């Protein structure tokens, strides 16, 4: 429920001043999510998998992770989508570790790394901050996640 704290903090005039925010006196309060935008979303790709194929072909490093206790965009959804890319497996499925605990499972495909994060909800770094930081460090280095 921590976004409630944000709703208070970022509407404080002294905070907005220090952030150089709201300089045009926006006629509505700052809020974590805009209902108006969400309900009037105009165009949305049916699938971004074609973009993944383009970006893989251009050599970008692509990592996809999934907190495995989220039911809104769950791990099964991501796995079905990635399966549709039909990528070659480079490193088969193995448990990755952080601080002697299983951080999740991972599989390295040609051009794309997929990892689950054990016990993390929709906002992975909120629920499993240590594991998320390990994931990020490995992503930046381009290294497979640690095996122990």
């Amino acid at each position, binding site marked *: 429920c921590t976004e409630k*704290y944000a709703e208070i903090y970022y509407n404080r005039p*002294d905070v907005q001043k220090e952030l150089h925010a709201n300089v045009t006196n926006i006629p509505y309060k700052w809020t974590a999510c805009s209902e108006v935008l969400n309900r009037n979303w105009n165009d949305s790709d049916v699938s971004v998998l074609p973009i993944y194929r383009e970006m893989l072909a251009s050599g970008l490093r692509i990592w996809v992770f999934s907190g495995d206790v989220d039911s809104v965009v769950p791990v099964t959804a991501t796995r079905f989508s990635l399966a549709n890319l039909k990528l070659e497996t480079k490193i088969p499925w193995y448990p990755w570790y952080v601080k002697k605990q299983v951080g999740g499972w991972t599989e390295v495909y040609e051009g794309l790394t997929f990892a689950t994060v054990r016990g993390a909800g929709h906002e992975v770094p909120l629920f499993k901050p240590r594991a998320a930081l390990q994931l990020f460090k490995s992503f930046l280095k381009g290294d497979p996640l640690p095996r122990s």
Partner: protein
Amino acid sequence: NEEEEADRISSLPGQPKVSFQQFSGYVTVNKAVGRALFYWLTEAVHDPLSKPLVVWLNGGPGCSSVAYGASEEIGPFRINKTASGLYLNKFSWNSVANLLFLETPAGVGFSYSNRSSDVLDTGDVRTAMDSLEFLLGWMNRFPRFKHREVYLTGESYAGHYVPQLAREITKYNKRSKHPINLKGFMVGNAVTDNYYDNLGTVTYWWSHAMISDKTYQQLVNTCDFRRQKESDECESLYSYAMDQEFGNIDQYNIYSPPCN
């Protein structure tokens, strides 16, 4: 330069003392209609000049990367319970990178448009174009990042924003003498493909014993997961599953109670 200095944050109210630099403010992405996106940069704790630039986008659509990414996920600070101040996040991603939180599109958080109709007809296309425009304008303001390694990250509906922005950057790089040094992107619990997302979601619900066999069968037999807008019959099955069968849980973290 002056614009950069004007964006410097000396210290946020209730913030603990830190060694890294911070900047925040607006970059205009459409001068004609007065549309501007808000950003917050927290530089890396050690040797920021050698660290990559990592852009973080939250999804929704319509949700703020300042509210989520910066304030409860990867940013250096957490807001305390009374919102009177901040405390440090010891697993902040700015321990290894310069973090650029972007509130996109206009209408999200502090980002705004003087053309009020913009919040009624924005979508994936304008968001990707404006986010590219933002990056180009932002790098002119912070020229030290012009050739830095850039990574895009995000979660949820940013599963659309991130690859779409990556594609816009890739297209820009093909026609520009000053390409953006985009190295890759990483997304989490990402909205990716309508059909597979919908099929995977109801499969997860069933395999995690959150819904009955009967409801699962009805969902699979009634819903056309390829459609953007489900039929009323299908919608009511989704509502029944969530309202009557999930029970008192937080869907974003199924073994926790909901936020009241």
